[in-house]
C-alpha cells in the first residue's frame, strides 16, 4: 500500500501541503478530490519525486520513498501521467513507447558495443510489446509519425500507452478526464477497469464527480493542504463538512 504520513511542503512561505496523511490500498481505485489549490497535484509531484517534501514520510509497501529522485520512484513501479501530455516531440510514436521499459540492457553503452546480440534480442521484445500496446490503444497506424504531429486526443492515448509500457503497480492519474471527449473517456474508463482486474492500483485526481462516483472504491478529500475526509463516494457526497467546503449546497 501507498502511505503518506504528516507530509509538509511549502513554496515561498505558503504551505501547499500541511501535515497531510493518507493511505491508498493495493488493488483499489482511489479518488483524490478537493477544491483548486488544495494541493492535489503538489501531492502527486511529491509522491512521484518531482518535488522533495520538507517534512514527513511517504511509504510504498515496506520502503520509504520520500525524497528519492523521480527516476528511482519510477523504478519502484509507480507511474504517473501528466495533466497535459508530455510526449517526446521529435521522436516517433513507437520510440516514445520503447523508451519506457526500465533496466534496458542497451541503456548501458558497453552492452551495445560488446553484447550486441542480447541487446538486439531485448529490443525486439520491447518493440513487440510496444506494437501490441499501440494496437490496444488504436495508434498502431501512427507508429512512425513524430509524436508532435498527433492530435491532442491521440496524445492523451499515447500518454496512456506509455504508462502501460512501464508495467506499473501503482498509477497516479492527474485529471484523466480533463479535456477528453466522452467517447475517449469511455475507452479510458474501460481500460482503467481492465487494468484494475490485473491488480494495478489507481490513485487519481479528478474534478468530475460523476466519474469519481462511478469508478472509485474510496475517495479522499483534500482541502488547504490536508485531508479533510475519506470514505466511499456515497459517504463523501453526504459528508456535511465536505459539502460545505467543496460541493456547495
Amino acid at each position: 500500500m501507498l502511505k503518506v504520513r504528516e507530509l509538509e511542503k511549502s513554496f515561498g512561505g505558503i504551505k501547499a501541503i500541511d501535515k497531510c496523511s493518507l493511505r491508498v490500498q493495493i488493488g483499489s481505485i482511489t479518488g483524490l478530490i478537493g477544491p483548486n489549490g488544495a494541493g492535489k497535484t503538489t501531492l502527486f509531484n511529491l509522491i512521484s519525486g518531482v518535488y522533495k517534501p520538507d517534512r514527513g514520510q511517504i511509504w510504498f509497501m515496506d520502503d520509504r520513498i520520500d525524497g528519492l529522485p523521480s527516476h528511482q520512484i519510477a523504478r519502484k513501479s509507480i507511474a504517473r501521467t501528466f495533466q497535459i501530455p508530455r510526449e517526446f516531440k521529435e521522436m516517433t510514436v513507437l520510440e516514445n513507447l520503447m523508451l519506457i521499459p526500465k533496466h534496458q540492457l542497451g541503456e548501458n553503452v558497453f552492452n551495445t558495443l560488446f553484447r550486441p546480440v542480447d541487446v538486439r534480442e531485448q529490443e525486439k521484445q520491447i518493440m513487440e510489446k510496444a506494437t501490441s500496446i499501440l494496437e490496444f490503444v488504436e495508434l498502431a497506424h501512427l507508429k512512425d509519425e513524430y509524436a508532435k504531429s498527433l492530435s491532442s486526443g491521440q496524445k492523451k492515448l499515447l500518454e496512456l500507452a506509455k504508462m502501460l509500457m512501464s508495467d506499473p503497480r501503482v498509477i497516479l492519474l492527474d485529471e484523466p478526464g480533463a479535456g477528453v471527449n466522452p467517447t475517449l473517456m469511455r475507452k479510458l474508463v474501460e481500460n482503467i477497469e481492465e487494468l484494475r482486474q490485473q491488480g494495478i492500483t489507481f490513485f487519481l485526481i479528478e474534478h468530475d464527480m460523476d466519474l469519481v462516483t462511478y469508478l472509485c472504491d474510496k475517495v479522499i478529500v483534500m482541502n488547504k493542504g490536508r485531508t479533510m475526509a475519506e470514505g466511499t463516494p456515497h459517504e463523501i457526497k453526504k459528508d456535511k463538512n465536505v459539502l460545505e467546503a467543496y460541493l456547495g449546497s
Partner: protein
Amino acid sequence: MEAFIGILNYAVFFAITAGIFAVLCLGLNIQWGYTGLFNIGIAGFYAVGAYTSALISGPPPGPMDWRVVGGFQLPWPVGFVGAALVSGLIAFIIGIPTLKLKEDYLAIATIGIAEVIRLIIKNESWLTNSVWGIKHITSPLALPIERGIRALLRANPGFPLWLQRLVSNGYNWFYLGMVVLILLLLYGVSEKMIRSPWGRVLRAIREDEIATSTAGKNIFWFKMQSLVFGAMIMGMAGSLYAHYARFIDAETFEPFFGTFLIWVMLIVGGSGNNLGAILGAFTIWGVWAGTEFLTHGWGLTGYRAASLRVISVGVILEFILLLRPRGILGEEKVVSFIFKKERR
C-alpha cells in the same frame, strides 16, 4: 603537373585540419545534437586534450623553456588516450554543479571553464610554458617515415620535380590516413551508440527531461555520460591537432577557432546527424579557407582581414538559423537501429 601537385598537397593539409574539426563536431553532436547540452566551452576540452597529449608524448622541456614538467615521450597512443581521459574528467567536474539545472547554466559554466583553462595555460608556465607554447611536439612515426622518404629521394635522384614534391609530402598523407581512420572509427561508434537504447534516452532527455525522469531514467547520469563522452572526443581532437601542428599555445584555442567555428559547422551540417556534423566541418572549413582568398583579393591584410573573415562566418550562421535551422541534413525521423533491421 607541378601546379596540380601543389593543389593536391594543399588539399591534404586542408583535409587533415577539416578532419580534426569533424572530430570536434562529432563530440559536440553527441552533447548538443542528441542530448541538447549546450556546451560553448569546446575550446577548453580541445586545449586540455592537446596539452595533455603534448605533455605525455611530447619532448621534455628544452633549455630555454620555463616549463619544468611533462615531456615523457611516451608513444603517441598513450598521449591520445590520456587526452581523452583528462578532458572527460574535466567535463565530469563541470557537470556536477550544472547538469541538474537549465541548459543556459551549462552554457555559461562551459564558457567559464574554457576561460579558466586559458588563464591557466597563459599563467602557469611551469606546466604549459605560458605564452611561449610547447614546441617540437613529436608526431607519431614521424622519424621512420621521414627517414624513409629521404632515403627514397636520395636513391632516386632522377624523380621529376612533381614526384619529388609529392613524395616529400608523404608524412602528411600518412597523417591524413590516421585522421580519417580515427574519424571513421568515432563515427561508427557514435552511430552505434546513438541508435541504441542509450541514444534513445539521450534524445528523450533533449525533448523533455521531466517526462524522461518519471519514466525511470536517471537523467543526470545520462547527461553526464553524454557530456563526458563528447568531451573525450574533443580531447582526442586536441591530441590529433597537437601532434600535427607540433606547436601549441594559448592562442590556438581562442574562442573563435576553438568553439564558435565548430558550432557553426554543426549547425550548418545539421545537428542530430553525424554525417551532417562531418559534412558541416568540411563545408565551413572550405568557406573559411575561401574567405582568405577573398580578403587577399581585396588587398586586406592583418587584423582587418581576420575580422572580416570572422564576420562572414557569423553572418553565415545567422542566415542558416533564419533560413534553414535544421542545417543541410537534419535529423533522420527513425533513428533506432532495430527499425532499420526490420525494414530490410
